C-alpha cells in the first residue's frame, strides 16, 4: 500500500442490535456496540470473531440491510458513492435499491446453498441483474451475462445449469461472480466458505482475491477462521461480544497479538506438525441481553484487573494503524 490510502467506507461509532420479544416485554440485544473503522480502497479487510460476536450483524448494517427486528441505535456508515458520501443508515431502501446496492456495494451471503432461485438457471440470475440495473434488453443481457461468466472462469455447463446441480464450491463461485457483476467498490463477504472443504475453500478464496485485485475493489471478509484471515486479508478486525477489540494489519496481529482474546484465539489453534498441548479459552461468551459490566471479556480474561470489571476500555492506538481496546495498553 503506497501513499495515503483512499477511504471508501467509514464506520463511525456504530451501535445496533435486535429487538427480542419476551412475553409482553421487548428486550434489546446489543449485537454491535460502538464500532468504528474504515475500509480503504483495494484492500482486503478481515473481520474475525467467534459465534455471536456480532460480525454478521455488522456486515448487514454495513450493507444497509436493516430490517426489523434489527435496528441501528446510533452511529453511521458512510460510503463513497463516487459522487459524494452516503450515510447508509439514513437513506431509505428504495434509494439503496436504485443507487447503492449491487452498484456500489455488494454482498456475498453465508449460505450460498439457498440464495439462488432454484427455478432459474445460473445465467438468468446474471441477466436479470444486468437488465434491471443497466436497463439493457433481454437478449443483450443474456449475451453479456454469458460473456461475463466465461470471463470469470466458469464453464458453459455451469452457466446453463440450475443452482442445485452445482457443487457447493461452484455455487459459491457463482455467487461471488454475481456479487462482482456490477464492479462494486465494496464487496461484503459473510463467511463465504463456511461448510466448504479445505481445497474448495482455497479455490474459492483465491477466486475472490483474484477478482478483488482485478477490479481494485475493497473486500470485507468475515470469517471465524483465523487461518483464512492469515492467508487472505491485509487488515484484520477482531470482534468479541459486539465490540471491536483489536484492529490492525493482519501480519502484525497474527505475529503479535495484543489483546488477550486475540492471543487466546491464535494460541488455541492446533498447527500441523505441532502436537504440543494447547490451551483453549475457558468459560462462555456473554449473554448480550445483559453483557457484563466493564470490559466484556473480563470474565474470561487471564489478565483481568480491577478496572476491567468496572470500566469499558477505550480504543487505544498503538503504532499507527493498530488499535486495541484493552486496559493493559493504557
Amino acid at each position, binding site marked *: 500500500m503506497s501513499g495515503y490510502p483512499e477511504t471508501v467506507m467509514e464506520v463511525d461509532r456504530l451501535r445496533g442490535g435486535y429487538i427480542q420479544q419476551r*412475553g409482553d416485554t421487548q428486550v434489546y440485544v446489543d449485537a454491535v456496540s460502538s464500532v468504528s473503522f474504515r475500509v480503504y480502497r483495494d484492500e482486503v479487510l478481515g473481520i474475525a470473531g467467534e459465534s455471536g460476536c456480532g460480525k454478521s450483524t455488522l456486515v448487514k448494517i454495513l450493507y444497509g440491510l436493516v430490517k426489523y427486528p434489527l435496528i441501528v441505535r446510533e452511529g453511521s456508515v458512510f460510503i463513497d458513492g463516487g459522487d459524494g458520501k452516503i450515510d447508509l443508515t439514513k437513506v431509505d431502501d428504495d434509494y439503496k435499491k436504485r443507487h447503492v446496492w449491487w452498484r456500489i456495494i455488494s454482498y456475498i451471503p453465508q449460505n450460498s446453498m439457498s440464495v439462488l432461485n432454484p427455478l432459474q438457471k445460473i445465467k438468468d440470475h446474471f441477466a436479470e441483474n444486468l437488465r434491471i440495473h443497466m436497463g439493457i434488453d433481454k437478449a443483450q443481457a443474456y449475451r453479456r451475462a454469458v460473456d461475463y461468466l466465461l470471463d470469470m472462469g466458469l464453464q458453459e455447463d455451469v452457466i446453463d445449469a440450475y443452482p442445485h446441480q452445482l457443487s457447493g464450491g461452484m455455487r459459491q463461485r457463482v455467487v461471488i461472480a454475481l456479487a462482482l457483476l456490477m464492479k462494486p467498490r465494496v464487496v461484503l463477504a459473510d463467511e463465504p466458505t463456511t461448510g466448504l472443504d479445505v481445497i474448495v475453500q482455497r479455490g474459492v478464496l483465491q477466486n475472490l482475491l483474484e477478482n478483488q485485485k482485478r477490479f481494485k475493489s475493497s473486500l470485507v471478509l468475515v470469517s471465524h477462521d483465523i487461518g483464512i484471515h492469515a492467508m487472505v486479508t491485509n487488515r484484520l478486525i477482531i470482534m468479541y461480544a459486539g465490540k471491536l477489540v483489536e484492529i490492525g494489519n493482519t501480519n502484525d496481529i497474527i505475529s503479535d497479538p495484543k489483546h488477550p482474546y486475540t492471543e487466546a484465539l491464535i494460541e488455541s489453534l492446533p498447527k500441523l506438525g505441532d502436537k504440543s498441548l494447547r490451551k483453549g479459552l475457558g468459560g462462555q461468551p*456473554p*449473554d448480550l441481553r*445483559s453483557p457484563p459490566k466493564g470490559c466484556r471479556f473480563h470474565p474470561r480474561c487471564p489478565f483481568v484487573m480491577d478496572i476491567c470489571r468496572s470500566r469499558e476500555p477505550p480504543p487505544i492506538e498503538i503504532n499507527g494503524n493498530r488499535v486495541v481496546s484493552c486496559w493493559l495498553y493504557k
Partner: protein
Amino acid sequence: MAREKARLNSQLYRIYSPIRNLYRSNVKFRVGLILFIAIVAFGSLSVFSPPDYKFWYSLPKDREPSLESIDMLLGTTSNGRSVFWSLTNGIINSLVIALITAAIASHLGLFIGMVAGIRGGLVDKTLMFLTDTFVVIPQLPLLVVLAMLLKEYMTFPLMAMLISITSWPWPARQVRAMILSLREREFISVAYLSGMRTSKVLMTEIMPHVFGWHLINATNTVLYAIGAEVGLAILGLSILSEDTLGTMIYWSMMSFGAFFRGIWWWVLPPIVVFIVLFASLYLISVGISEYLDPKHRRWVG
C-alpha cells in the same frame, strides 16, 4: 446472575405446560381455543336436554326464536322439535364423530407411517403401496359406497371409522417422510447408543417430534370429519335419527325445505356453528404450527 435467571427460566419452562405457553404466546391459538371451548360449552348444555327432546311434534312447529322457554330459545323446527336442543346435541354428536375419527384416522396414519418409516424394506414398500392404492380411489364415492353398505349397522363410531378409511393415506405418507428424515438425526442414534430399545426410542425420541405435527393433523382430521359427516348427511347417509350438524342440515334443508321457506332459525345455527368450529380449529392448528415452527407457518391440510 444470568445463570440464576436461566435456571429460573428452566424451572418455569418445566412447570408451565407447553399448552399454557402456547396459550400465552400465540394469539391465534388463544382465540381459537376460546371459541372452541365456547362451542363445546354450548354443546355441553345438551346434558340438560329434556328426555323427549327427540320426539317429533312435541312442540308447536315452525316457531320463531323467543325467550318464553329454553325449548323455544332458538325456535322450533318444522317437525315440532326445539332447535336449541337439536343444536346442542348436534354439536356434541358431531364432535364425538369427529374426535373418534381424529383418534382413529390420525393414529392409523401415524402408525402406518411410523412402521413404514422405521421398519423400511418390504414392510415399507407394502404399506406405501397400500397407501398409494387408497390415494387413487376417489374418496367421496368410496365413502358413499361404504356408508350404504354398512348403513344397517351405522353408529357414530362406525361412521367415524368409515370417514377414517378415506382420510388416513395422506397423513401416513407425511409421517413416513418425517420419520425417514428423523431417522437420520443424531439424537436417534444417541438414543440407541444409550441402550434404549426401539419401542422406547419411538416413544421418547420420535413421538415428541411427530407429536406437534400429529396434533395439527388431528385438528385437521376433526375438521375433515365434521365436513364429511355433513356431506354424507346431505346425501341422507348419516344417522338421521340422531342430531348432528349434518342431520340438522339434512332435515332442515333436504327434507323440510326450510331454506326457501325462510325458517332461518333452523338453517343457520348448524352452519354458523360449523363455520365457527372450523375457524376455531383452524386457528388452533395454525397456532400450534406457528408455535412449533415460527418460520414455517405450515398448515398441513
